[in-house]
């Protein structure tokens, strides 16, 4: 069994994950500022704003975990990290869609930011599936 | 031992371009910020001053009833011209300083005009003349006028009113002028001709002045006294004047300088960090050397 020295980690996926991490910081700042703006100027029923802010914080943490697992899985060329990451992608898509469509008040900037986020997630999912296929084939 | 790094390059190079751009942005951006947030220069400021107002002991009172008109004034010539309608008057005048700051701020005036039948007056026009002096910012001496017109449908014989003298400014004060232009007498005491006695013309000329005063009446009431003659009781307060002026050059410059420096400091810091990043990571090609400086004490 000769050692296999070729690198099978997906470079485009890694670049996308790295940029997505930086994009999340930008997303965090913009969303916090828009929540502050909405809290100050728009009328909310009691408890609604708090619920949305909690959802936003959970979404951020979940996304950070998702990127972390995907990075680890990609760099160690193991399937398990990427599978966990794909499993975590589903609530992340749900959260982004909520912030995009079903929020109580959706600002124009939030629309754009979450749409770009969904584009990132979509590209990453495609590349992750390709990476799973590549890793599974080489491990088998 | 201090170690610092210096970067060299030729005069025409990307490094000088970077340097020029950062210096321009550093020193230009505070101007841009000031331009977008309302400008540097403060064009108008206000302050309040208790002016010295003195009653000149001159007045003109025009009383009108249903069919007759009476006039009483402190100008001998007016009284002589209108000798038919003239009725003599007795005045009691007190000027008080209620808040003890050395400047009078209350005038208690009582005018009793005799020779008027009981309960005939329905309309009164009263002109009181004062001298005001402003001295805190510029020196202005004004002759100021308080004009009251009051009408009552019921015929009465006493008028009480409560008022305040207010400063009317149609033009902003400029710095440190001494302006006595309106200190002339509106009606010359000794020599009055009939043309100058047009009330409309007097009031119009007075109201076209740039600096004048106005009487604001808070409370006017008419009474019947069942006695002959007409009495006027007045409480007039001298309120502090609110004066707006254009600041002088050094005052504007002081505030503009503060704004510029406060906007400049963050920009200097930020662009210094950016320049260190650019030159240390060789984003533009330069030759850099480490320079070691020994401390002087060795």
């Amino acid at each position, binding site marked *: 069994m000769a050692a296999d020295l070729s690198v099978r980690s997906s470079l*485009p996926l890694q*670049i*996308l994950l790295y*940029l997505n991490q*930086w*994009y999340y910081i*930008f997303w965090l700042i913009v969303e916090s500022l828009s929540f502050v703006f909405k809290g100050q100027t728009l009328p909310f029923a009691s408890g609604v704003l708090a619920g949305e802010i909690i959802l936003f914080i959970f979404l951020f943490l979940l996304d950070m975990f998702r990127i972390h697992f995907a990075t680890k899985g990609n760099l160690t060329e193991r399937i398990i990290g990427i599978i966990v990451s794909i499993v975590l992608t589903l609530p992340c898509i749900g959260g982004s869609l909520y912030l995009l469509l079903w929020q109580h008040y959706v600002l*124009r*900037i939030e*629309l*754009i*930011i979450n749409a*770009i986020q969904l584009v990132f997630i979509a590209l990453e999912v495609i590349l992750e599936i390709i990476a799973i296929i590549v890793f599974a084939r080489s491990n088998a | 031992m201090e170690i610092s790094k210096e970067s060299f390059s030729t005069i025409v190079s*990307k490094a000088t371009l*970077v340097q020029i*751009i950062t210096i321009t942005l550093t020193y230009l951006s505070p101007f841009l910020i000031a331009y*977008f947030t309302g400008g540097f220069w403060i064009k108008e400021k206000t302050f309040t001053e208790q002016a010295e107002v003195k009653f000149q002991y001159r007045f003109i009172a025009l009383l009108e009833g249903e069919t007759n008109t009476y006039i009483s004034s402190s100008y001998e010539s007016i009284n002589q011209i209108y000798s038919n309608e003239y009725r003599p008057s007795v005045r009691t005048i007190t000027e008080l300083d209620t808040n003890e700051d050395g400047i009078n701020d209350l005038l208690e005036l009582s005018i009793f005009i005799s020779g008027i039948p009981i309960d005939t007056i329905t309309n009164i026009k009263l002109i009181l003349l004062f001298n005001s002096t402003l001295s805190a910012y510029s020196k202005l001496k004004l002759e100021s006028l308080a004009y009251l017109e009051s009408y009552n449908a019921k015929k009465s014989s006493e008028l009480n009113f409560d008022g305040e003298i207010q400063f009317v400014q149609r033009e902003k004060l400029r710095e440190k002028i001494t302006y006595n232009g309106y200190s002339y007498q509106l009606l010359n005491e000794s020599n009055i001709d009939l043309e100058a006695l047009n009330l409309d013309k007097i009031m119009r000329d007075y109201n076209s002045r740039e600096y004048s005063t106005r009487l604001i009446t808070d409370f006017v009431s008419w009474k019947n006294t069942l006695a002959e003659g007409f009495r006027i009781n007045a409480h007039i307060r001298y309120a502090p004047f609110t004066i707006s002026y254009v600041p002088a050059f050094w005052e504007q410059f002081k505030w503009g300088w503060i704004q510029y420096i406060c906007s400049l400091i963050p920009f200097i810091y930020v662009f210094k960090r950016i320049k260190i*990043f*650019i030159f240390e*990571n*060789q*984003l*533009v090609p330069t030759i850099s050397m480490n320079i070691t400086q020994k401390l002087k004490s060795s």
Partner: protein
Amino acid sequence: MGLKSVQNGLVPTRFMCMLAHMVMLISLLIRRNEYVGSCDTVLYQNVNLLNNQFIIGLSISIGILAIELVTFITGITLFNTFQSLISTFLHSSAAISLSIMVFFKWCSVDFWYIFGFCSCIPFIFEIIFLIGIWLFKRTIN
């Protein structure tokens, strides 16, 4: 060689600036009417023409920026420090100018200045580097 700058965070900076520019352009595209409407009606009679010009300008900007993002992500100009410097500076100044345009409701004709400086110049340099890499096999750092 300039890779030290990449280690110190030049690549994310450039990405964020391009992204900020893109976000501002898209948000302007969504609500154009205020900017076309705040133009001087005496100078610019034809509002429809202005509207069309604004849409075309914004779309071209977004297209150019998308091309630049693609060449950035796929790595062609990822490590090119000169292009990074120009790109960072010009895209960040475009983002700032566009947000000033939103705040102070500038006329849409002023957008063309921003377009000229901040969208065209990085694109031109990008094309020069692309041609250099493909045709002449040379990379400039």
